[in-house]
């Protein structure tokens, strides 16, 4: 019995000292084995960009065995904060840094637009409406129109499903689809997750919301905006305005592995993966925005 306790104690002590030793050696293992790209990169932030960044990291690491890219979610705010304080090498964000950070801190960051993401208005499949004008959409989201019959549908109550006010998706939708109009407070359901939004729209009669194109499937119905369909072609040609850049921010000019990774994200090697996952590569865009 004593032996048992002794061995348990011993193994505990060993394990603790091991973790302590590991803690001592820290996380930045800069190994140099002669290959041109090595070292650790951490990218933190936007959950909308996370799947794509993870995919890129995976492919990048398959090519460069000595590089180690860690991608983490946590939200755009977290990403910008971490990169601005040196907690991460790259901050992933759905919005421009100036919208989340104080001006002096945002100025110190360098913006890399890695791809474009489009958003569409989605409604419950039972709704007969196919198209909404900008004004109709504004009226719906600001609570002026509360029944689908006012926009040419059946007699059914409008149920708005919104994103939390801190969400980048909501900011984009508000800015480009609603012209910055104030949404009605206290009327909408709020779900902070694309999956839950989709589920709620699919199951709730009269529901309307908005989703990134990558999340849209058969369970919800996509609406035209001002008669224009939310397709990749319409976004790249500039006909359809509801889209935003996905950003990777670095503090100052990137170097070494960080630079190599960001370059890879926007390189032609990765273009097909971007399209495959429902995002739009920068190279396809025939138009651009600077704000």
């Amino acid at each position, binding site marked *: 019995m004593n032996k048992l306790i002794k061995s348990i104690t011993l193994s505990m002590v060993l394990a603790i000292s091991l973790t302590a030793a590991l803690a001592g050696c820290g996380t930045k293992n800069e190994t140099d084995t002669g290959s041109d790209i090595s070292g650790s990169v951490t990218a933190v932030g936007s*959950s909308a960009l996370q799947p794509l960044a993870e995919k890129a990291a995976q492919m990048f690491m398959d090519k460069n065995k000595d590089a180690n890219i860690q991608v983490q*979610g*946590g*939200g*755009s*705010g*977290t990403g*910008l*904060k971490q990169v*601005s304080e040196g907690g991460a090498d790259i901050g992933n964000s759905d919005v421009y840094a100036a919208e*989340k*950070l*104080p001006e002096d801190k945002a100025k110190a960051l360098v913006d890399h637009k890695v791809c474009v993401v489009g958003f569409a208005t989605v409604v419950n499949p039972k709704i007969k409406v196919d198209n909404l004008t900008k004004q109709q959409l504004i009226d719906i989201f600001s609570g002026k129109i509360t029944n689908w019959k006012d926009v040419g549908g059946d007699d059914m109550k409008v*149920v708005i499903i919104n994103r*939390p*006010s*801190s*969400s*980048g998706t909501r900011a984009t939708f508000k800015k480009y689809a609603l012209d910055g109009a104030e949404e009605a*407070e*206290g*009327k*909408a*359901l*709020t*779900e*902070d997750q694309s999956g*839950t939004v989709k*589920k*709620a729209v699919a*199951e*709730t009669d009269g529901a309307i919301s908005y989703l990134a194109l990558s999340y849209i499937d058969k369970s919800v119905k996509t609406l035209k905006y001002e008669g224009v369909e939310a397709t990749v072609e319409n976004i790249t040609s500039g006909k359809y305005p509801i889209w935003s850049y996905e950003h990777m921010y670095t503090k100052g000019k990137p170097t070494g592995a960080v630079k190599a990774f960001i370059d890879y994200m926007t390189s032609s090697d990765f273009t097909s993966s971007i399209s495959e996952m429902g995002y739009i590569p920068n190279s396809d865009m025939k138009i651009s925005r600077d704000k």
Partner: protein
Amino acid sequence: MLKEKYKNSKLYYLEHELLGKYTVTFFGIFLIILTICLVTFIATKGLATFFNNHYSPIEFLFSTVWKPDRGVSKGGPAIGTLIFIVGSVSVSLLALIISTPLSVSIAIFMTEISPKLGKKLLQPAIEVFTGIPSVVYGWVGLSVLVPLIRANFGGLGFSLLAGSLVLSIMIFPTIASVSADAIRAISRDYYEASLSIGATRWQTIWKIILPSAMPGILTGVVLGLARAFGEALAVQMVLGNTIRIPHSIVDSTVNMTSIITMDMGNTAMGTVWNNALWSMALLLLIMSFLFIILIHKIGKKGVSK
């Protein structure tokens, strides 16, 4: 001879008694240090709203205007959290109202009606309920409960009722097991005496056992309330998160933990918005301390009786 001497020496005593004693004492004290650390960290972050951004605690607690993203031109961010507080309180209280009668009935059943079934069936069942992760509760609530409520009670399904039902199942094990312990602690003499003067089993339970076990049961209820108050993910999945005071139980509403989980990652530390979220976390912490004090008060009452 030498061995004897060593056994009675100070060194031996130090090695075989004091060393151990002081080590475990240190770890006992460590719990205090840890608690102080936790409170200090959360408090420094949580109080920044009032000391650095100069918002008044009164506005924070009693205003219903939550516009943390409002531009400076329109009067700057407003961070009234009354809606979230009301949401947290109402969803937890409703969960208690649903859960307490059931939990106490189960506790009575396990201790007085059929201890055998209690031990064989209900005790393991309670343990499994305790072990089910909150994400799973939320997921099942979202997949089953929300559509059910939508079909039978109207509204959107995402509602105060859905949140409370999910919570009531989650806090049931806490209340039931604490109540069962309290009932078990009542002396069997009471029970025998009551039966011997011709009272039925139910009269004995109702008139003798429950009143004497009341402090223990109340402790369980407060613990359940504390748990309901702090639950984050499961509630957020089914509550609907509409920023308004609910008018009926099928209305969707929002609570403190939901807004924290939704906005914490998307706001940068140091901004007013983010500080306000930390202040809410501090409020949650203060609430759980208040619950503990309340439990102690109930316990003292029980003793003085």
